[in-house]
């Protein structure tokens, strides 16, 4: 079954104070689909003044919203989840059109996972409690969590609706108002969602502004009228946002990518069974979402005594990947998100070859026919080399994986940790000791053990090292969006005795 490009209006507005409004200076930018480079619609090219409007609306709404009951907030979050679920197919189609990822993924992963995150945070705030401690017979310490106020959120283009759904629910559940800026490559699903949920929250609680990083993102991140910035992206922008936040002494949370190792110990090939089949798929998950995932398992480490046999199976599975029209439900790998991403990926494959990496499969762009010839496609690619090569150290953000061998556990751990980043890792083994000891030795925030690319709400996700800090998808994220109020209460009738 194949879908086709959805219909869009000619242009869209910013969602500020519960209404769609045109940008103040009347300027728009054209947003295109990476599937065939065709025009989707025009979106506001917002400037500082538009950001101010949104920030002011959020500030005006924060007092009342921060004082709503948890029942009320949970009910509204659940309402959003229901609306996303009711419009699953429409949102999936828009997401595929805007990002280039296959409809199979948006229908089965992006949108259902988004629903799950809204429901999770609706549930969390009904179940969690503050605390009270009796410090001595007459002194009680009460801990009450209070919202920060207004949150600025800047999200990337690789999972537009899902990243929105990682960011908005915990901030709103904690009682904050939000100004969110989607990536300029993918403004569509956030806009469609705002159309669907326009009346759910009081005006000003959720605001979405579009525009370019230097013109709209920077004024948002540096606004003295916000109380925190949450960012997912890359390291240089992360550093800049932290700098701007430091001027306002604002907290930040950062998710900045990785170069995740996916480690296969020899016991995976002890049997030719369902688990081996799962492990082979686990290696091929480098091509999931065209490799445009911050946790892309982009380094495969295979124990040397199974290397040839294992890689033969991985290459065969990679060969079987269907790369075609993203609107076709049979398609497994779609388009890269933009022309510059495609060029960047090709330049990495080139330097990889120069450094001596061997192309085991792929290694070039993928030419599709008809309108798709104008889109940005890269063949799933496996490069064999060693960990000092740049392709093993930098996030390529494409369906490109680098594979190398290791001798023993010590060498596997050494290679796995020889990276600037520490976001994700995978460990595959049938050995009960390795199942615990290897993940503990890896310096990364999420280690998938005998699985990969699973992102349920309720499992904290975030980075070590240059991959950032903060833990999303879990109730602990709520504390990144809250203050701690301590009420220290004395029940003693007598004075201290100093004066």
């Amino acid at each position, binding site marked *: 079954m194949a879908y086709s490009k959805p219909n869009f209006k000619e242009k869209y507005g910013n969602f500020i104070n519960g209404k769609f409004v045109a940008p103040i200076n009347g300027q728009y930018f054209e947003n295109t689909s990476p599937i065939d480079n065709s025009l989707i619609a025009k979106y506001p090219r917002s400037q500082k003044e538009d950001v101010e409007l949104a920030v002011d609306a959020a500030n005006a709404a924060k007092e009342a919203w921060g004082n709503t009951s948890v029942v009320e907030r949970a009910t509204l979050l659940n309402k959003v989840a229901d609306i996303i679920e009711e419009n699953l197919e429409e949102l999936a189609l828009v997401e595929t059109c805007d990002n280039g990822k296959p409809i199979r993924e948006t229908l089965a992963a992006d949108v259902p996972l988004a629903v799950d995150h809204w429901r999770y945070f609706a549930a969390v705030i009904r179940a969690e409690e503050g605390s009270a401690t009796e410090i001595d017979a007459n002194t009680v310490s009460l801990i009450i969590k209070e919202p920060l106020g207004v949150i600025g959120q800047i999200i990337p283009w690789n999972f537009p609706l899902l990243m929105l759904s990682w960011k908005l629910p915990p901030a709103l559940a904690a009682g904050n108002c939000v100004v969110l800026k989607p990536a300029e490559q993918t403004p569509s699903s956030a806009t469609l969602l705002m159309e669907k949920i326009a009346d759910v929250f009081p005006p000003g609680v959720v605001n979405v502004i579009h525009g370019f*990083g230097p013109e709209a993102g920077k004024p948002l991140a540096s606004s003295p009228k916000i109380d925190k910035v949450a960012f997912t992206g*890359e390291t*240089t922008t992360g550093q800049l946002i932290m700098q701007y936040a430091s001027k306002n002494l604002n907290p930040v949370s950062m998710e900045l990518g990785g170069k995740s190792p996916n480690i296969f110990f020899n016991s995976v090939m002890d049997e030719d069974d369902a688990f081996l089949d799962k492990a082979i798929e686990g290696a091929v998950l480098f091509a999931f979402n065209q490799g445009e995932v911050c946790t892309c398992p982009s380094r495969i480490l295979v124990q040397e005594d199974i290397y040839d046999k294992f890689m033969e199976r991985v290459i065969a599975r990679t060969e079987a990947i269907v790369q075609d029209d993203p609107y076709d439900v049979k398609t497994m790998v779609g388009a890269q998100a933009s022309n510059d991403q495609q060029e960047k990926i090709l330049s990495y494959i080139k330097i990889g070859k120069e450094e001596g990496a061997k192309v085991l499969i792929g290694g070039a762009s993928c030419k599709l026919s008809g309108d798709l010839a104008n889109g940005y496609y890269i063949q799933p690619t496996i490069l064999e080399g060693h960990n000092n090569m740049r392709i093993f150290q930098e996030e390529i953000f494409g369906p490109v994986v680098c594979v190398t061998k290791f001798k023993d556990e010590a060498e596997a751990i050494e290679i796995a940790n020889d990276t600037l980043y520490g976001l994700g890792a995978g460990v595959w083994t049938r050995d009960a000791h390795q199942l615990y000891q290897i993940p503990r030795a890896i310096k990364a925030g999420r280690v998938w053990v005998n699985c990969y690319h699973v992102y349920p709400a309720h499992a904290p996700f975030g980075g070590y090292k240059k991959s950032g800090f903060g833990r999303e998808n879990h109730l602990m994220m709520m504390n990144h969006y809250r203050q701690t109020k301590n009420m220290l209460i004395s029940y003693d009738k007598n004075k201290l005795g100093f004066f």
Partner: protein
Amino acid sequence: MKFERVAITDRAIEIVRQLKEKHGDLIFHQSGGCCDGSAPMIFEEGDMYLDDSDILLGQLEGVNYYMNQDQFEYWKHTHLTVDITEGRGSSFSLEIPLGLRFIIHSRLLTDKENEILN
């Protein structure tokens, strides 16, 4: 003969000149990580806090090109050429509103270059 770690294409120079006219003095900083990472970014001088951990790789059209020290350790055996392409990044890099993105093409340093530079 001059040995350099970084170079720039003529069409990229044109964009750098255009941006200098609008924004004044500029710097390049090589990003790492997710999404729009692994790409050069251009900012107004003074916007980004730089210190000893930022290595100066060279100067292109009067614009200093920096990279963080620990990233440099993995990159120092390669030569970088800054180019420009159509595209839409989502960082704070100043060329983005033009519908353009700076990108880099890399090659290995020659043995002679390696000897002099590293």
